[in-house]
């Protein structure tokens, strides 16, 4: 996930000069500019218009006036900031110690912790949120039910329905991405920097404060900005916990403006709210890129064959393991167990002899009756089309950025990174507006294609980061050696380059497929009756209060993801061997 917007600069002496490369690169740049730019343009356009999409009319600032003269808006902005700050705080609270424990100490079961952290990514945030509600809701939550039964408590023991509660659930869900980003930064830091301080006679505490902290600060700051940028736009936790409790944040407001529970959608208001979010997102993205580049200056080439000593935790070993387990419990074990338990019962109840007597697989048996085949078909289409199109585009973009000397390759790279900064919900609202207002030009509203387009645009940033990295690794001379042996350009690409980059591309393909599979915000924003996918079905069930069905479908959703990713990793694990 590390950002290398200057991948182009990393290889200044690129010298591929094929006829038509410039033309091709120009076409690709134009295509990206269109698919990234138009939805953004739509957000701006809708904010300047009133009435239904497509009604035209003069451009006006009415929406902005309505939004920003309303004191409620500032309350929402305040909530958003508090929620985002809390989320970042919680995420770093877990991620920073975990990075240090897994990278530098002799913590036991590191491999298993890594795997479970990956499983954590595969549990969609909305399912984790639902599971925690089932546990901690003041009224129906299992913990609070149990407290009532046992101690006759009137007041709920614990409640999630407040900003700290939301921040904890969202923050915990951010830990894996924060962890992997920080770990990547940490890996490039030379441990000798620390040891040089010890040999200078500097104490461990002073070394930590004056060497480790300042050197890792740009990386931590970069991750903070990234998480913050993501947190101001997330939708699932705010919608599932915040909205019912009347804690409204910006994303929920944008969503309800375009999908109101009653009344007509108001795209103008959504655009006016979205404009703030977009501005904030782009500003934060700018800082993020700056920080990452600053941090890169600090990475030093490590001496050859050098392995840092693992710090012996000694007596603290078990405390550290308990910390890791606490995190994994919140992220993986507890949510999953709650879902499994609830899915086996006809209605939500705390474990008891009576409850155990009712355990059955009934809910699983009826999934198909409730759902039908359509969401499965649609989801399968997304899972195949989105990663394929994204990776094809990414490979083409990276090839131009890394391997050619086209003058605007830097701009192309930036363009491909831009979706990173665009909140998914805005992208979806922009596309929805486009589909509604310009139906004849863009006749995909209400189809699964529009969801696929939204997903592809979003993940092209991730896709190109991976393919840039992979292509930089495949040294140019490997290609040239092929040409010198007399192979044609096509043979070189097919027989040398492709096999070398296949593992990396395959990996991202799986991930993007999984991200598309579990994505709900965009699918929901763009959803109609025809393009339902599994994640939006779960969401609808939850809205209808069909708790055991939600749990059953959720369990299937998670198990399927784990089996697919696990199976593919095992089956094709050897693909990546030479990259280790």
């Amino acid at each position, binding site marked *: 996930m590390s950002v290398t917007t200057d991948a182009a600069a990393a290889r200044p002496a690129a010298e591929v000069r094929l006829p038509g490369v410039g033309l091709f690169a120009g076409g690709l740049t134009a295509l990206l500019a269109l698919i990234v730019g138009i939805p953004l343009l739509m957000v701006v356009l809708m904010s300047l218009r009133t009435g239904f999409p497509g009604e035209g009319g003069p451009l006006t600032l009415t929406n902005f006036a309505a939004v920003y003269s309303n004191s409620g808006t500032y309350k929402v902005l305040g909530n958003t900031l508090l929620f985002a700050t809390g989320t970042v705080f919680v995420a770093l609270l877990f991620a920073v110690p975990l990075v240090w424990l897994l990278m530098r100490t002799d913590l036991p079961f590191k491999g298993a912790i890594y795997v479970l952290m990956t499983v954590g990514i595969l549990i969609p945030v909305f399912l984790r949120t639902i599971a925690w509600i089932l546990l901690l809701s003041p009224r129906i939550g299992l913990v609070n039910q149990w407290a009532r039964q046992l101690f006759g408590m009137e007041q709920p023991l614990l409640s999630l329905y407040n900003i700290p509660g939301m921040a904890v659930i969202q923050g915990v869900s951010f830990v894996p991405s924060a962890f992997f980003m920080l770990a990547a930064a940490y890996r490039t830091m030379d441990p000798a920097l620390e040891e*040089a301080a010890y040999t*200078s006679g500097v104490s461990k505490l002073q070394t930590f404060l004056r060497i480790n902290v300042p050197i890792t600060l740009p990386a931590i700051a970069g991750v903070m900005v990234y998480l913050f940028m993501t947190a101001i736009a997330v939708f699932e936790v705010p919608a599932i916990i915040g909205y019912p409790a009347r804690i409204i944040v910006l994303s929920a407001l944008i969503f309800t403006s375009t999908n109101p529970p009653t009344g007509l959608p108001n795209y103008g208001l959504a655009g006016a709210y979205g404009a703030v979010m977009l501005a904030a997102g782009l500003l934060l993205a700018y800082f993020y890129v700056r920080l990452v580049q600053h941090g890169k200056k600090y990475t030093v080439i490590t001496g050859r064959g050098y392995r840092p000593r693992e710090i012996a935790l000694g007596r603290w070993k078990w405390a550290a393991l308990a910390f890791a387990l606490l995190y994994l419990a919140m992220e993986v074990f507890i949510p999953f167990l709650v879902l499994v338990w609830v899915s086996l019962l006809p209605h939500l109840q705390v474990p008891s002899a009576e409850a155990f007597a009712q355990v059955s697989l009934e809910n699983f048996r009826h999934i198909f009756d409730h759902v039908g085949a359509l969401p499965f078909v649609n989801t399968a289409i997304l899972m195949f089309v989105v990663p394929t199109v994204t990776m094809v585009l990414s490979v083409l973009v990276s090839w131009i950025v890394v391997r050619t000397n086209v003058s605007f390759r830097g701009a192309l790279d930036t363009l491909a990174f831009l979706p990173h900064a665009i909140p998914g919900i805005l992208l979806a609202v922009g596309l929805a507006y486009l589909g509604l207002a310009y139906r004849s030009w863009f006749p995909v509203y209400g189809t699964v294609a529009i969801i696929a387009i939204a997903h592809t645009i979003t993940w092209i940033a991730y896709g190109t980061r991976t393919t840039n990295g992979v292509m930089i690794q495949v040294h140019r001379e490997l290609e040239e050696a092929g040409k010198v042996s007399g192979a044609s350009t096509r043979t070189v690409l097919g027989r040398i380059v492709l096999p070398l980059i296949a593992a990396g591309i395959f990996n991202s393909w799986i991930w993007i497929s999984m991200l598309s599979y579990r994505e709900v915000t965009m699918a929901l924003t763009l959803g109609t009756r025809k393009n339902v996918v599994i994640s939006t079905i779960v969401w609808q069930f939850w809205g209808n209060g069909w708790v055991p069905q939600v749990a059953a479908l959720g369990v299937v959703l998670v198990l399927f993801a784990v089996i697919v990713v696990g199976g593919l990793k095992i089956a094709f694990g050897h693909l990546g061997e030479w990259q280790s």
Partner: protein
Amino acid sequence: MITIRGLKKWFDTRRGRVEALRGIDLEIGEREFCVLLGPSGCGKTTTLRCVAGLERPDAGEIEIEGVTVNAPARRVYVPTEKRDIGMVFQSYAIWPHMNVFQNVAFPLVRGRKRFGKELVAEKVRRALHLVQLDGLEDRPATDLSGGQQQRVAMARAMVTEPKILLMDEPLSNLDARLREQMRVELKKITRAVGVTTLYVTHDQAEALSLGDRVCVMHGGEILQVAAPDEVYARPANIFVAEFVGEMNFVKAKIAAGSVECALGSLELPVPPAFAAAGAVTLAIRPEHVELAAADGASGPLVGTIASKNYLGDAALVEIEVNGVTLLAKLPGDTEIAVGQRAAVVLRPERWRVFAE
């Protein structure tokens, strides 16, 4: 003064136990420059890091200036920051968030002994002068060339005037010419300061030119500790002979006072230990293989030049004699050419004899 006794260190890895050090004994005298030399993976870095306290040995003892700093059997361990040492790392480990001055001043400001502002400035100035970086105080660390980083690392390691200086392949990341230049300077600087130095390298030329003594290691053990000329002229065994400089090897049999090999019967002073050994290996340096015109006056050994490798100041020539290929080092301007025949003169006192 550094004393190392019976030092052992192993690593438990996923592929089983790696015995990095199998019992190292070494004494390094006051102000001595001692070089640890050996192929990659022989345990040089591990030894150095044990002395620095960055690695904890599993057995044995280390004393620095008479103070025991490692003795696992007695649970003695002095942490790195309490040892009076300076260290130069292979990657230099220049702190990237500080400028040159801050890097060099750090040990004086935050280290064992702390000094006042003025004294720090003076000591840093002197240290930078020593490594010829005068006036670069304000340069950010990230704007330094490899050679400059190397010098900053040296200055930082010596600014506290430690009794012991440890260096792990400090020149290996520099390009060839700069390496030669720094080698000479390094020797001058350590001489001038008079610090006890333990220096790790896998480059035999570096070891021979820098060391007061060279310690050749292999597979976690010490094979020979001696002055450079001694190591070169009288290698303790075949491995040292092969690793340090070029060497010709010939299989031979000892029979009744003389030595029989493919080159014929040689009259050599056979060390008494080998008198009854039977099979041995003979070794001679290329510069001791002399060639002469193959005329009537020549001895019994005549061969054909198989290849010639011109190096400017010297030429390396392969000559085939009785089915044995010998490498000879001749002056660069030798007229000898491939295909010519030449007589080979091998002086008996130049041969070394090793167990097979």
